[in-house]
């Protein structure tokens, strides 16, 4: 139980607040999820992303990428191009994310060594994305959440990095979904003012604490709240990943042609 909830329990009789009334004031988990997904994240965006991957011995690998996203109605297309280092340069990843959650996403990966665009399974979403501690699903969703994969419950409120957050527990709707995602439970800390996650804690399918994602440096760009730093600590492997976003631009229109297999082959 979190500290704020404990304090509320202890103080409730003194304050004359009924627990039922306190619970009623908290939005439901589903309502919070809807609010997260309703948050404006722009018609399109372009940005640089630096990935720092650090193993348990402290050895760090750095990848520099440039990414683009664009909405087509409710369909979201995302593409990521690796710029450096040399051994991974020109690798590119493209996703078509469809609004109908019963329809699998379409995903392609371009591997320069093979010079071929490979179709990859969208059910592979629990695998880690190119050596990071984010899964393909984490990468695809960005700051949004799936409405169909989890049952949600609001547990209370807590302060994270000086910001008030709702504490939301999410449990996969089935064992099959849990295995697919690689998570048996997720606890999210959702900012009450801007409806963005500030922290997430994840448990693996065996029920062990798996990883913690800390979202930092959230500020507005072109009027849109934007996370600029994501830190992940994998508790099982001791591996860390830091995503650092820069040159975020929601105003310059992103070219349709970037979201194609031809663009993956050509690179930037």
């Amino acid at each position: 139980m979190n500290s704020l909830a404990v304090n509320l329990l202890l103080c409730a009789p003194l304050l004359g607040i009924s627990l039922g009334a306190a619970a009623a004031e908290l939005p439901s988990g589903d309502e919070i999820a809807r609010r997260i997904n309703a948050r404006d994240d722009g018609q399109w965006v372009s940005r640089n992303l630096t990935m720092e991957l650090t193993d348990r011995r402290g050895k760090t690998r750095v990848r520099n990428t440039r990414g683009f996203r664009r909405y087509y109605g409710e369909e979201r297309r995302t593409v990521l191009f690796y710029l450096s280092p040399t051994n991974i340069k020109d690798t590119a990843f493209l996703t078509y994310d469809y609004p109908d959650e019963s329809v699998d996403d379409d995903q392609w990966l371009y591997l320069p060594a093979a010079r071929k665009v490979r179709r990859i399974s969208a059910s592979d979403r629990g695998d880690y994305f190119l050596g990071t501690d984010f899964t393909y699903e984490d990468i695809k969703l960005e700051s949004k959440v799936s409405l169909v994969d989890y049952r949600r419950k609001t547990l209370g409120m807590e302060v994270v990095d000086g910001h008030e957050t709702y504490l939301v527990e999410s449990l996969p709707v089935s064992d099959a979904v849990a295995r697919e995602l690689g998570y048996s439970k997720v606890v999210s800390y959702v900012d009450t003012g801007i409806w963005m996650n500030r922290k997430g804690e994840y448990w693996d399918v065996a029920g062990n604490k798996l990883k913690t994602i800390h979202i930092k440096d959230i500020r507005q760009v072109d009027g849109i709240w934007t996370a600029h730093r994501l830190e992940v600590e994998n508790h099982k492997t001791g591996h860390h990943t830091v995503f650092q976003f820069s040159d975020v631009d929601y105003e310059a229109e992103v070219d349709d042609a970037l979201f194609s297999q031809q663009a993956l082959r050509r690179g930037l």
Partner: protein
Amino acid sequence: MIRGLFLLWLGLAAVSARADIDLTGQLESEWAYGYEDDVAQKWDFKLTPELRSDLGEGIDLTVRLRARWDAEDRLEPGRPSQDSRATHNRRAFSGSRAELELREFYITTAIGEAFLTLGKQQVVWGKADGLKVLDVVNPQSFREFILDDFDESRIPLWTLNLEVPLQPGWEGGPQDLVAQILWVPDPTAHDIPQDGALYAFTTPRIVPRPPPGVPVRLNDAALPDSLVSDSDWGLRLSAFWAGWDLTLNYLYRYNDIPILFRQLTSQGVEVTPGFRRTHLAGGSFSNAFGNLTVRGELAYTSDVYLPTRNRLDADAVVPVSETATVLGLDWFGFTDTVLSLQIFHSALDDDHAGLYRKQHETSATFLLRRSFWNETLTAEALFIHATEEGDSLSRFKLSHDYSDALELWLGLDIFSGDRNGLFGQFDERDRLVAGLRYGF
């Protein structure tokens, strides 16, 4: 020529110094030990600098060189003749161990909605791994048979490559519909190791054996040499439709394996390697279904000339047409793991008596790849099995990304089966491999 390529590189670097330039490269060394015959097959060092530059006006330039030095000189002993290479697509040698090759030299630019890639380049078609059905635009070097990475063994050609986006013309039609038009005025064919090389072909499927005691005279091969009339032409239509990645492919080209035309003379047998036109028409597809991806290719090739053992045949080769198909399944059900199965089938138009191959032949590949430690360690096992001859190739590799810049690997390649088979001919070439690659 080495001096010329070096000066070209310096010149480009100097010119590009004032422009937007990206200079990267790799230094690689690989050692291969043939444990069956206790011989070091190779110990080579490769330097592959790559320059990319924005020339302005929306034009980008890519230049990639490959300098290679092999201490053992057993894969191509001495200086290869390069008869199979067009004069403007040859490697420059210094002694018998060092060579320099212009691997890529092309500009890219948008022309309206279209995209042009002009110059020496690789064009890769198809969805198959390790087996070539549609991936035949560029010829291949068989210096290390098929053990080298295709990216390294594929021979880049001087090519005009124009990609034109098309509109489907009706609602709900295919997305991402693109026509690719190729003009390849470069007749370079496969690099086939000469006699004495470690991976020289011995299977009669490719190199038929003369009758015992009959003297054989081998004439020089003559590549087609007319810039326009001997050019290869290609067209590919690609689209994404209802979840499927689809292509239709057509290629009008010369065969890349020299046809060994035989002529009986009073002195014995005279063999003249030659090249003939073929039409290739086919297509490919891929899609994902849950944990499974499905991919495939089909290609019909006309005028494939195959050697025959029929002594009554006038030139000892038979023109046939071939239909080749490959179906691949990739399963991603286990974390960080890929299981891949491919079935390859080749069918000739008829059961021609005397051919060294059967009318129907099937091969299968099985790949298991798993990554560990946040994809810094990868273990891979690949099996390729030819059903009719019963020969096979097994490959095992463990590679480690020690750092951003440094990759290390160990490998084991095992050939087995009938000496007449494509893989069995190298039954005594099993090898251990160790290598490293440094990126800068």
